[in-house]
């Protein structure tokens, strides 16, 4: 019921916008959002397609809970083939755009083809039209949103757009919505740019219905109570945001530092959640202004920050002396610990730039870290960098290269290709901290073994959000496991992967799973949709989605050989902390994982598995 049962198909080549019915059979098997859109990709797109060609498709998708009163109902995704990884890409975002799209009456928007010139999609409920965006091309995300609001004369519209990074082909360009939320990873913004699609502006006043409203409100109310009572979702995340992790992970000895040369960062406490609360001497204010919620979210982990007006990054630049999306753990790590920079204000500024110009801070920071490693090793010199001293810990160089990358200028063009391509170009591929060409995030698999398997097997390239075993290995959710042992991690990873696929297909946020189990989530979906939805059917659905993504990737040409980690993680032992002397023991986990998945030793889903999952 809380699918709108409508898909908007936009052909950018011939400028048409047409409504069609959502495939109900597929929705039963793949739920919505990540799962359902992947099914459309598998059915409609040749996996071998050039991701930046007109033949690739770009899908904006909501889930059945998006736009409802379920907690964290603001989630939505962009699904396409990634230009960074060559694999399926599914980038999730929060904010308000997804709920607005749902309230306008759309489960999904499928973009196909390529526009001759810059366009944006203008949606008001069932009215959708492509409009000229020539005057927006080259503008930042922030400028674009302001322009769209003014053009529409309606402050209540919601926007998703790309910035200059997405236009200039930065391979990790993001689709940014509501100015500081993003479908960040895997270059979904690059695909959008390749299609000459600048933005989507949407106003939805139709609203979202659920099947059995009484039952639904009860289930949602129960889930909210659990979230409120939980230490992580009720207290830790609201107070410190994801930045609650900075000191925790550093102490765990799993904070990849200076391109993973180290696993602990001496400056961690200066860039973490506690530091954001500290009153600055300069202006008597803290970096953190407030926490903020996405649509329907009782957790409100998002940070609103203001940079010290006297800081060199913003001094004399009032346009940056505003309250905007502050550092998350991942961005504080990637822009900070990974590059060895411990200047909180500078990192906040770099994060603003990522939002404003439309880039994934994880890939950006990690690629800059790799460049710093290349620079240290002498593989690149001042001649390559245009005089930029890309030394670990050089704050000014970090700020300069972040801006240059977003604008597609100077050495920023090389950074924009991502770490794998850049390191290969300069003859040191081993310095790239990537899996399937995507930069890994803020957890060092030498200190948290399960994250090694997580990265290696993630269907979208290295990523923490496909199976966040940190929850178990560090935080003890749902139960504590030893982060230093590979034992039992295969099963843990599989369970997390399948559950995450369900949540990502539902329209809610993975952060709920710090507190909610599938038994808490299933009743909401069951009250919402026709049919019987139990934990068991949902977990099987999650496994189905996982295998479907795997199939797309295999057909795209990826193999088991791609299920690996950077040599540094496998060969160079951690130098300090609890994991001192450890490498990641992927070889002990991967075969077990394949077996648990019902895949062959070569990582191919067996026919038996495919049959069991009705694939």
């Amino acid at each position: 019921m809380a699918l709108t049962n409508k898909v908007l198909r936009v052909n950018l080549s011939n400028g048409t916008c047409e409504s069609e019915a959502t495939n109900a059979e597929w929705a039963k098997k793949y739920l919505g959002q990540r799962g359902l859109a992947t099914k459309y990709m598998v059915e409609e797109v040749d996996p071998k397609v050039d991701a930046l060609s007109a033949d690739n498709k770009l899908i904006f998708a909501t889930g059945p809970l998006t736009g409802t009163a379920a907690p964290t109902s603001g989630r939505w995704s962009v699904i396409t083939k990634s230009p960074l990884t060559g694999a399926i890409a599914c980038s999730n975002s929060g904010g308000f755009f997804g709920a607005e799209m749902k309230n306008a009456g759309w489960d999904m928007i499928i973009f196909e083809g390529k526009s001759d010139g810059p366009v944006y999609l203008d949606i008001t409920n069932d009215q959708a039209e492509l409009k000229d965006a020539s005057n927006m091309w080259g503008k930042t995300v922030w400028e674009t949103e302001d322009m769209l609001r003014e053009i529409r004369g309606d402050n209540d519209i919601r926007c998703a757009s790309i910035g200059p990074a997405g236009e200039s082909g930065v391979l990790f360009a993001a689709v940014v919505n509501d100015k500081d939320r993003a479908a960040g990873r895997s270059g979904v913004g690059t695909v959008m740019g390749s299609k000459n699609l600048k933005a989507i502006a949407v106003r939805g006043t139709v609203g979202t219905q659920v099947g059995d409203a009484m039952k639904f409100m009860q289930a949602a109310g129960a889930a909210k109570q659990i979230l409120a009572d939980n230490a992580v979702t009720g207290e830790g995340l609201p107070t410190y945001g994801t930045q609650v992790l900075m000191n925790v992970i550093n102490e765990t000895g799993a904070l990849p530092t200076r391109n993973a040369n180290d696993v602990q960062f001496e400056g961690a406490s200066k860039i973490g959640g506690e530091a954001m609360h500290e009153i600055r001497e300069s202006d008597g204010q803290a970096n953190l202004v407030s926490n903020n919620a996405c649509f329907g979210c009782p957790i409100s982990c998002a940070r609103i920050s203001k940079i010290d007006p006297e800081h060199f990054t913003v001094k004399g630049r009032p346009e940056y002396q505003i309250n905007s999306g502050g550092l998350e753990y991942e961005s504080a790590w990637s822009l900070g610990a990974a590059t060895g920079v411990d200047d909180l204000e500078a990192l906040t500024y770099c994060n603003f730039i990522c939002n404003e110009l439309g880039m994934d801070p994880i890939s950006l920071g990690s690629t800059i870290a790799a460049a710093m490693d290349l620079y240290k090793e002498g593989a690149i010199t001042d001649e390559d960098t245009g005089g930029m001293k890309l030394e670990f810990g050089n704050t000014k160089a970090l700020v300069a290269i972040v801006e240059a990358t977003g604008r597609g200028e100077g050495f920023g063009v090389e950074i924009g290709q991502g770490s794998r391509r850049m390191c290969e170009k300069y003859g040191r591929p081993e310095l790239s901290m990537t899996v399937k060409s995507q930069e890994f995030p803020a957890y060092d698999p030498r200190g948290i073994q399960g994250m090694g398997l997580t990265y290696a097997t993630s269907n979208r390239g290295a990523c923490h959000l496909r199976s966040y075993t940190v929850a178990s290995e560090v935080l003890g959710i749902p139960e504590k496991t030893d982060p230093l042992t590979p034992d039992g991690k295969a099963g843990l990873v599989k369970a997390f992967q399948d559950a995450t696929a369900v949540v990502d297909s539902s329209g809610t946020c993975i952060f709920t799973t710090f507190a909610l189990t599938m038994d808490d989530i299933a009743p909401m979906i069951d009250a919402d949709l026709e049919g019987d939805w139990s934990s068991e059917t949902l977990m099987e659905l999650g496994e189905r989605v996982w295998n479907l993504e795997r199939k797309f990737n295999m057909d795209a040409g990826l193999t088991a050989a791609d299920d690996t980690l950077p040599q540094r993680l496998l060969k160079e032992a951690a130098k300090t902390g609890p994991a001192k002397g450890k490498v990641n023991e992927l070889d002990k986990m991967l075969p077990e994982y394949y077996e648990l998945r019902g895949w062959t030793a070569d990582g191919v889903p067996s026919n038996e598995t495919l049959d069991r999952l009705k694939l």
Partner: protein
Amino acid sequence: MKHVIVGAGPAGVTAAETLRKADPDGEVTLVGGEADPPYGRMAIPYFLIGNIADSGTFLRKSDDPYDGQGIRYVQGIAEDLAADDGKLTLADGQQLDFDKLLISTGSHPIKPPIDGLDLPAVHHCWTLQDARDICGLIGEGKDVVLMGAGFIGCIIMEALALSGSNLTVIEAQDRMVPRMMNKTAGDMIANWCRSKGVNVMTSAKVTGVAEDGGKLSITVDNGETLPADLLVVATGVRSNMDFASGSGIDMDIGIKVDDHLQSSINSIYAAGDVAQGPDFSTGGWDVHAVQPTSVDHGRIAALNMAGHDVTYQGSLNMNVLDTVGLISCSFGLWQGVEGGDSSEKVDTANSRYTLLNFDGDLLVGAVTLGRTDHIGVLRGLIQSRIRLRGWKDKLMEDPNLFVEAYVDLTRT
């Protein structure tokens, strides 16, 4: 204390109710001029469409809203006022003694000096009875001409259009609703109405009306001659104050009242369409013939009649209009003030328009088309004289952000 209220529109009824509470021991007499119980003119279009019965237009819905509440209700038309004697004489000879009198007799429509406007198929649509009279003359296939596209004409225009009649609107000035809208907005409304099938003529005057084979034949100075089953004349109204002309009371376009709604004669007050009272925006005196002003007048006049000392800060000119589905509003000095800034946003494709006029960093007037949400804050911004500070620049750039400005400035 004997209070007499002559005129039972919104101003009179509000005054009677206020007096009943404010002076529990006094006598309150309310004189209504029409056969129907007091009703709201703004509801007439909905009666014409058939959305409501005539009782749906009544100002009060309870069983016995007047006599039952201690308000003596008298039907009659005021004919003479002897201020010194404290006597009001009605047309039927009845005499009412008063210590305090409120004149809230409203206004009546006027016909311009054009031949043929006395023909039977020529009507006003002013009173509930007028509405009943024209109900039978409109409908599918009927040719209807509306003369005058001012506020009063426009509020019934939608009803005439929705009836299925072939409707032509003739406005002498260069745009629709000329006293409420500037040229841009007036033209946008005209274009909207045309797109809804209404034939709109502006800068056009009716020069003559004749009867021709059972139908009216209306000659327009643009060369056209229109056949019509009904001609509705809505070319203006005039205050009902002739009965007071011998009393020595000060009158101009209405009965002049001060900031206590008191007339030049101490015992007499005036409220509503008949009162020429203080204008919030100009500091001058004007007639603002709109419902909110009428009830404000009625209440404040009544409180002063009851012996309170209540100062009225002046009425704000404001209107809301629904022309065949396009909703427009105007507030205050929508024409702007000399030396003041103006911020305008035109969205022709979506029939949306916003105009804000400032005096320094105060909002003094506004016009909107095509938006309804939180529209009342325009009154708040103007009448609370809220300093816009930094929002002035933002509104100069994008006038559509006025609700955000109000909320931000008042909710800290």
